[in-house]
């Protein structure tokens, strides 16, 4: 048992942003784990992602490329990774906290009898095994956990670690793996539906997010948030309440069970700031909150706060922005 293995699934030839955060974690752990770093990339068409992953400074990149891995099919991705771990016997496996990654990590920990250390914001290895810090109770509480026995499967929290820079030197050699599950599959994938792709920007990439919640009362006000987002060159996001109510698609959800975001500006409108929402946006550079309830917990995390009715605040905010941005462009 030795070494660190980073696992990442590739969709549409794109390497996930979290990959470089996992590289940071791997570099931090490398001196105490030993045995070097390997990368496993899984998907049906790795495309450009493979070339990028070869710059991570790993001893090699193992490629799990197969038509059956086109879907985010947890069982298939897990079986492919488990078979590889059977051959490589890594001491630490790092997996990104995506819906697919989190499940692959859990399944792998069960199969290997490994300790799963989930959602970590800080991690180190010493004589007593892995010690990590992680938020629990929706981020209201910080827990220090310890897993003495390896192997370990570690799932870092998105944005908790800085993205690593590509390594200098030669690109890592590539080793292709066969997809040979140990057991016949028991879960099966059918038709896939993509929603909200028409013009909706990826909220994880936007530098400015204008986010709406329960206080908006329905889908209609999101159009106003869209106007503000457009003026700021950003995108619209939402809280879980707005998504569960069907006002906006799931792809816009920020929070523990949605996306984790770290924009330059997060403008929250009509969101009280339940801990599971704050868990997804607390890494924003600047947070501005508009809420009619002065006791809303979100204000405790905000840089700027407006206590008021969004119906009055936001249209005036939009108009003032429009005016100021126009003037400064002329000047």
């Amino acid at each position, binding site marked *: 048992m030795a070494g660190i293995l980073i696992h990442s699934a590739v969709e549409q030839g794109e390497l996930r942003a979290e990959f470089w955060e996992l590289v940071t974690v791997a570099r931090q752990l490398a001196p105490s784990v030993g045995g070097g770093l390997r990368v496993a990339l899984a998907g049906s068409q790795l495309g450009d992602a493979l070339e990028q992953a070869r710059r991570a400074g790993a001893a090699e990149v193992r490629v799990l490329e197969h038509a059956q891995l086109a879907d985010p099919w947890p069982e298939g991705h897990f079986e492919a990774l488990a078979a590889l771990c059977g051959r490589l016997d890594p001491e630490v496996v790092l997996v990104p906290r995506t819906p697919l990654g989190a499940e692959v990590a859990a399944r792998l920990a069960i199969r290997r009898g490994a300790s*799963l250390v989930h959602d970590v914001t800080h991690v180190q290895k010493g004589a007593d095994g892995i010690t990590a810090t992680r938020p629990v109770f929706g981020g209201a509480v910080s827990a220090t956990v310890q897993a003495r026995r390896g192997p370990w499967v570690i799932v870092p929290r998105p944005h908790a670690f800085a993205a690593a820079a590509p390594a200098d030197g030669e690109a890592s050699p590539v080793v292709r793996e066969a997809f040979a599950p140990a057991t016949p599959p028991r879960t099966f994938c059918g038709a896939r539906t993509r*929603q909200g792709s028409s013009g909706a920007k990826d909220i994880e990439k936007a530098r400015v997010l204008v986010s709406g919640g329960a206080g908006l009362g329905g889908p209609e006000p999101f159009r106003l948030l869209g106007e503000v987002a457009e003026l700021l060159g950003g995108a619209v996001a939402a809280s879980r309440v707005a998504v569960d109510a069907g006002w906006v698609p799931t792809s816009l959800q920020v929070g523990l069970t949605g996306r984790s975001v770290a924009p330059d500006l997060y403008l929250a409108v009509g969101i009280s700031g339940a801990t599971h929402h704050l868990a997804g946006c607390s890494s924003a550079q600047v947070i501005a909150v508009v809420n009619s309830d002065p006791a809303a917990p979100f204000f405790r995390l905000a840089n700027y706060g407006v206590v008021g009715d969004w119906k009055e605040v936001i249209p005036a905010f939009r108009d003032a922005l429009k005016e100021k941005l126009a003037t400064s462009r002329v000047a």
Partner: protein
Amino acid sequence: MRAVVCLKQVVDPLTPATELALDRAAKKMKPAAAGPPVINGYDEQALEAALRLRESLGQLEIVALSLGERFHLDVMKRSLAVGADQLVLVQDPSLDTPDSHRVATALAAAIRKIGAVDLVLCGRQASDWDNAIVPLLLAELLGMPCLTLARRVSVQGARVEIDRVLPDGSQTMWSELPAVVTVTSELGALRMPTARARLATARIQPKLLTLADLGVAAAEPPQVEVRDLSIPVAGRECRFVEAADGAAAGRRLAEILMEAGVVRPEGAR
């Protein structure tokens, strides 16, 4: 056909952080002073999935199952008031733990004791530790396939089919029964019980089981131990925008964000 819905009693996630209290010696949360615990939200949605399934199948026996150290009976009996046929509670001090193996082992033993279970429904994760591993462990221990993140659950013959939520949409997935299925919030909220159902269930007692009844041995040390819990202080100081009215505050916010360089003209291009 019989379904078990696993319910976890948790500290209400809407409890303001200022009212949370820790027992640092025991490395546990104290019960919130502000109000009673709640059923984990995703588990409530799993119960709603079971109730909808009963409506579409015409017949389904629903057993609500929970483990814990101490139960708030009014909270747990809500499952009966909305339509669960039976409530089974396994009580033991060792079950108030974030140790997934301990919890999954006890759940699996209880499900075997209930017997002839075709479908196990769980919430996608618990709102306290968010590990999302217990349903997968449970499936492994029961030898069942596991489908996760369902926003819709249906049963046709011996097969369960779900719509699995993905970051950019959803995908249909299926497996043979018996199976474990986890449910996500997009499925929709648990229905409200009627006043009459609430009254009718007031007299129904849950079935209480101990670990000895289930043949579950004493706890082994967990693989992942909790060493410490602490409440971090919020790291920002909020500057409140003072203005005569909402519109003035909105204009002022735009000025402040531009002066601070947070909003720049090039951001608009």
